[in-house]
């Protein structure tokens, strides 16, 4: 396959897994947590690298899950001491991210890890770093990892669909029915972490937030049904990825930035034009 196909495929996988997870980030009102975890997984990756001296595959996923859970736990812990939720998120993630940056600069040295790359990602380099998988053949590492994460995300969403729904809508009732609300919370944080780390190589820590939040926020404006919201969010995520790639190729600019920008355009269109919650229809309703 050509490089272009691999890059577009990778971008689409990022768009899909991020936009699906994003729906529950929005419904659980945890958008800020995505921002936090997208930064702290850097520390997880660096520590995983320092321990195993490898920078691919399962090590990174496990490092990311641990970093994500540590972030969620620390935020919860600080919050107990009367520190406002968003303030504790801000404190925890910047501190953990800073440790990650310092470790990269001092201990990791010339390995394939640098801050610029971590923040912005570089999807154009993805086709060069390949592994050989049974049955499939030579595949870029990032693409393989994203496929694995997408499968995990979809299976988790389908398998625990009603549990996600009830713990997002009414956690108190869920707990009184015996549904493990706390376990679901940390499971969700783990899913956010692996999605983020898998998308890291492609779009970096900052743009991944756009892919997580914006397609889901746009979908929220179009529908009153959770299943449709998931499908729409996925559609917006994938379309943004593809449009972003071709815009970047046309203007010769950063692919991840174009993808993030495309999600913003989708949001703007939804915000103005959605028949249910859009600005124009609201204005028309008031006028009529």
């Amino acid at each position, binding site marked *: 396959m050509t490089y272009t196909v691999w890059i577009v495929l990778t971008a689409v996988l990022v768009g899909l897994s991020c936009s699906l997870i994003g729906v529950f980030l929005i*419904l659980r009102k945890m958008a800020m947590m995505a921002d936090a975890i997208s930064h702290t997984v850097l520390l997880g990756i660096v520590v995983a690298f320092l321990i195993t001296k490898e920078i691919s595959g399962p090590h990174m996923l496990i490092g990311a899950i641990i970093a994500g859970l540590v972030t969620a736990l620390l935020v919860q812990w600080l919050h107990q001491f009367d520190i406002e939720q968003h303030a504790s998120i801000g404190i925890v993630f910047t501190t953990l991210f800073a440790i990650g940056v310092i470790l990269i600069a001092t201990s990791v040295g010339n390995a394939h890890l640098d801050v610029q790359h971590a923040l912005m990602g570089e999807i154009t380099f993805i086709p060069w770093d390949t592994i050989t998988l049974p049955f499939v053949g030579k595949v870029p590492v990032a693409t393989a990892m994203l496929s694995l994460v997408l499968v995990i995300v979809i299976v988790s969403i389908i398998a625990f669909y009603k549990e996600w729904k009830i713990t997002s*809508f*009414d956690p*108190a*009732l869920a*707990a*009184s*029915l*015996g549904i493990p609300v706390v376990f679901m919370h940390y499971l969700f944080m783990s899913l956010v972490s692996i999605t983020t780390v898998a998308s890291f190589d492609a779009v970096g820590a900052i743009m991944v937030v756009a892919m997580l939040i914006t397609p889901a926020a746009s979908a929220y404006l179009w529908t009153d049904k959770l299943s449709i919201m998931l499908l729409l969010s996925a559609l917006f995520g994938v379309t943004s990825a593809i449009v972003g790639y071709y815009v970047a190729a046309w203007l010769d600019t950063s692919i991840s930035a174009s993808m993030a920008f495309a999600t913003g355009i989708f949001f703007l269109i939804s915000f103005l034009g959605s028949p249910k919650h859009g600005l124009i229809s609201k204005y028309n309703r008031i006028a009529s």
Partner: protein
Amino acid sequence: MTETVLKVNNLSASYRKNTVLHDVNFQINQGTLTGIVGPNGAGKSTLIKTLLQLHPTLTGTVDFFGLPFKAAQQVIGYVPQRGSVDWDFPTNALDVVLMGLYGRIGWLKLPNRSHKQMAMEKLEKMGMAAYADRQISQLSGGQQQRVFLARALVQDADFYFMDEPLAGVDAATERAIMAILKELKEQGKTVMVVHHDLQTVADYYDHVLFLNKTVVAHGDTTSIFTKENIARTYGGNMRWTLKEEESHVVHSQ
């Protein structure tokens, strides 16, 4: 002989460093309808949440049907405050009622046709069948509360806790909810309700529990719902409510 279905011993709970409940002791008999009343910040919601282990217990024990909470969980129903959830959530009325069955449906399964049938029956009972497909943000406050009640009914619990089910609802909904509560009581179920309107306590509940950080008084409404107990619970600033209460009594006679 009436059976004791809830025993609370020496219960206390706190928010951060402030103790909101201390030395709470009471027993509830089967088939009673109890109104929990007390001033703002008296710990009414916290009491319910602590009993249901949604809020950590500092000291004390709670027995349901002679069992610890976890063992009795399946037969206990809870109706949270209407304001505690996001009504913009993308779901409809029928779906919210179905959530009452999620504990029973079990892992890896989705609600089937018979579950939907049960949920639909309860919506009908609350006069909400026509709104089953309605997005929940498009329901009025009273309709939302009816959906919550339908969700509690579908659980088919033996003991219900309801947190201010009459707050901000229209008169018709208030009557409908009270009719349902009486019906539950007649079926031998036990109900505890956080209530904020002192004027209706005597009409609505056969038992009353005065709460202000601890149990001030508890028992039969006829003997316990007195001016003295109201004054002891609410302190000196309740004169106007007492006056209204008296005028209400005069009106209705």
